[in-house]
């Protein structure tokens, strides 16, 4: 599911395009791998300066010196930093993320458990952001300076100004406590928890496939508030960028040409101008989706949402370095994947760069 975007560009792709895209992938991958390595180094270093003793976290406060030292050797913490990092890299390449000190589970399975929760939230949030954000941005650009532009601007700036954790709390207060329209924190009500055998881990999907509609709606009413919240932030960003791209495009000479040809405004806006803005827009949407996929710590905290952001944060605060580095690998992978995809999509949508 993580790489579900890979086959999203539509068919009709000619061989010529594949050839150049292969080169692009190779070049991009090499530069991004460097970024990835840097990311791991930074995380690793941060982990080493955290003033929490990772060994103590495993053996407990009352362990004897012998037990402590054994654990230290076992964890590889007695070796020089560079060696530790080297060992770690080799393990990652073998697909071994180690065991979390905090949960006692393999980090990989931990992440596999938490990621669907974030995926579910991020996908619905981005969907809301795109479906509302793009039309709003287009309208704001076309009616520049009119009331709809001002409204979009204020809503957008509000999205840039409001603290997530506060808006989340207020949302819970209003829609959950006062109005009772949605469910409270968590992914499911206690009564429904663990009734479903997880297939993808995305509860909405699993419940729908298995025909468990009661569970589906329960999960939906848990999901809708945090997803709308994230969708609002995504909408603020996407509509602003759409407006700015559209303003640029609408000033281009080819738009004047389209007017000279006597085309209708609708055709000029949607078929000419927006079509030219698609490539940068894809990059924007990808970026916003990636930032949500990497886990929104505050939203997940407020809504007690067991996702990636909360997992990394908790691990970090408990000096669970295997988990933190594992999380970093996932973030790096998302970053690489999204960069690559948006680059490829950009090239597919713009004949000049094919």
């Amino acid at each position, binding site marked *: 599911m993580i790489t579900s975007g890979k086959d999203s560009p539509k068919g009709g792709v000619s061989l010529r395009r594949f050839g150049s895209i292969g080169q692009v992938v190779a070049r991009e991958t090499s530069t991004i791998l460097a970024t990835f390595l840097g990311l791991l180094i930074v995380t690793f270093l941060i982990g080493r300066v955290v003033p929490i003793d990772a060994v103590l976290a495993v053996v407990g406060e009352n362990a004897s010196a012998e037990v402590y030292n054994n654990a230290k050797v076992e964890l590889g913490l007695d070796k020089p930093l560079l060696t530790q990092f080297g060992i770690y890299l080799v393990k990652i390449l073998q697909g071994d993320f180690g065991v979390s000190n905090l949960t006692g589970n393999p980090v990989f399975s931990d992440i596999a458990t938490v990621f669907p929760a974030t995926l579910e939230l991020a996908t619905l949030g981005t969907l809301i952001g795109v479906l509302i954000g793009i039309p709003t941005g287009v309208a704001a650009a076309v009616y520049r300076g009119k009331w709809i532009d001002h409204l979009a601007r204020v809503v957008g700036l509000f999205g840039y100004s409001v603290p997530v954790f506060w808006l989340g709390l207020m949302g819970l207060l209003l829609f959950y406590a006062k109005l009772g329209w949605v469910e409270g924190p968590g992914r499911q009500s206690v009564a429904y928890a663990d009734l479903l055998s997880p297939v993808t881990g995305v509860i909405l999907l699993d419940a729908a496939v298995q025909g468990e509609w009661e569970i589906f709606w329960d999960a939906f009413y848990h999901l809708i508030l945090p997803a709308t919240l994230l969708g609002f932030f995504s909408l603020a960003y996407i509509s602003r960028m759409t407006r700015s791209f559209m303003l640029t495009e609408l*000033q*281009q*000479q*080819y738009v*004047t*040409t*389209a*007017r*000279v*040809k*006597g*085309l*209708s*405004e609708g055709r000029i806006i949607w078929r*000419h101008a927006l*079509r*030219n803005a698609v490539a940068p827009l894809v990059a924007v949407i990808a970026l916003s989706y990636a930032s949500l996929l990497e886990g929104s710590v505050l939203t997940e905290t407020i809504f007690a949402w067991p996702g990636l952001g909360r997992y990394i944060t908790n691990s970090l605060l408990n000096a669970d370095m295997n988990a933190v580095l594992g999380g970093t690998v996932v973030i790096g992978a998302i970053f690489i994947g999204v960069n690559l995809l948006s680059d490829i999509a950009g090239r597919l*949508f*713009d*004949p*000049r760069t094919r």
Partner: protein
Amino acid sequence: MSSSTARPPLLEIANLNVQFHSRVETVHAVRGLSFTLGRERLGIVGESGSGKSLTGRAILDLVPLPGRVSADRMTFMGQDLLAMSAKQRGALRGAHMSMVMQDPKFSLNPVMTVGRQIAEAYRAHSKMSGRQAEEHALHALESVRIRDPRRVYNLYPHEVSGGMGQRIMIAMVLAAEPELLIADEPTSALDVTVQMQVLAILDDLVKERGMGLIFISHDLPLVGAFCDRVIVLYSGQVMETLEASELAQAKHPYTQGLLNCMPDLNRRDDALPVLKRDKAWLA
């Protein structure tokens, strides 16, 4: 200012003004321009910023915001342009009046094949199937002397040369056989070698179809050679209107200045004269 035809004038403009208001200042880009156009070739000449391009755009109702157009009289084939709604003006564009712009690199949509852009122009003004529009577009490409229309049809704008791009533009804006064509510096962005070729095509099509042409340029000798009549603009005002054949006898110091700032092999000058400008010319 006699018109060469007996028919009512194609375009009549009296006291055209284009102004840009901003909070800080008002720029008066075109001031009190008047002229009458028959089925002839009229040149409008001036430096950049003289208001010549805006004049063309005002006729087409394409002056960008916050520009404001006003005039005492603006008629096109007897219809009052000033009384029309924006939508009616839009319906005139392409069908009855059209424009070629300076640089085909920017005036063609970069993400649409040139063929589809031409076909789109056909479909905008008459009901026809996609197949028919494609046929027309291929024919149009042929009429601007493009040898392999089928191949060119599927090219993107960045894949064609400047000269070919401009021929494509011409084919596109002439799709609906407009009565009036405004050519805004149509060859300034092209190599000198293809300039003449493009001009020749333009000239043929205009003559063939009996269109009126407004040719906007900064190049006075070129306009003199190509047009019947020339209007010289300075700072949004008409300095002089003359028959192209009498260009050499221009009386106005600004027109003379424009002519003299071209180097001449038969003239011995140590330095090219600098164009003289005088605020007193502006009434």
